[in-house]
């Protein structure tokens, strides 16, 4: 039983309540249910998570690195778009 025919899945894990799911890595699985179990065993065995999302990698649409210039460079000199001009109270975490 090889895994060469199992599709690739991307794994997102929420490490605790209030935080967003973050990309943890990828793995192979035959279907979504197996992907969830595999993700549990591969990525949360050291108590890393409380919630897992999996999505088949082929369903992710990625930007093309060749277009980086037109996509991202225009934002580099527009500092006024950052919300950095007011003070945040210390109690507001994870901003």
């Amino acid at each position: 039983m090889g895994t060469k025919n199992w599709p690739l899945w991307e794994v997102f894990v929420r490490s605790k309540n209030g935080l967003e799911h973050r990309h943890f890595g990828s793995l192979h699985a035959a279907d979504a249910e197996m992907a969830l179990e595999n993700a549990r065993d591969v990525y949360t065995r050291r108590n890393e998570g409380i919630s897992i999302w999996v999505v088949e990698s082929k369903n992710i649409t990625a930007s093309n690195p060749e277009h980086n210039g037109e996509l991202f460079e225009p934002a580099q000199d527009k500092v006024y778009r950052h919300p950095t001009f007011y003070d945040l109270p210390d109690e507001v975490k994870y901003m």
Partner: protein
Amino acid sequence: MKNENLYKYILGVADNSLILGQRMGELCGHGPSLETDIACTNISLDLFGQVRNYYQYAAKISGDGRSEDDIAMLRKEREYVNVLLVEQPNTDFAYTMARQFLFDVYHLLFLRELEKSKDLTLSAIATKSIKEVSYHQRFSSDWVKRLGDGTQESHEKMQDGIDDLWTYTDELFHQTKADKAMVEEGIGVDVTKLKDKYYQLVDGVLEESTLTIPESKWFQKGGKEGIHTEHLGYLLSELQYMQRAYPKMEW
């Protein structure tokens, strides 16, 4: 030994998990894929974690100065009282999952009863283990279904595993003298009462997996009395190697 029946009872429970844990640990680095390799060793580590609690308790009861390691590692083959099912080899992945499934269904039913034990240590170990074993059962049941209801080849391999291992299932519901004594005291689980529910659950998964429920009514027994299949000796020689070669060695 004052509490000899309790001591023997604990070994009867713990040895199953020790030997099955060793079998699953053998797959470390040898699983069919990275993901299943880690899953199998996770199960192994869950089981070893459980047996440490049991053997620590047994060591305390034995009162003869032996440690958990002495009890786990330094008995002779005939002194292990695990059921024959868990010592069967990792013939192939279907066989390994069939063995795991046939034990997990029993293990979870057993722990849910052990949780009600009058012995608070055993009850606490059961409570802690139930979540782990619930996942084991889910994992192995899924694989029985996937392979049983998969390709023709995977179906045949899973059917072979179930047919082969079926003969070891009845022993799960046998009682030793120590078992009976502990049931009388409200400490042990009356495994004879788990039998109907067990076969009902197992049959349900096999049907869903398009597998044929074996009809054989002839069953192997002996493990609980220390009479084992030829496989246990080889397993123990690997399990015990470090403690035999380097006595009293610690991590």
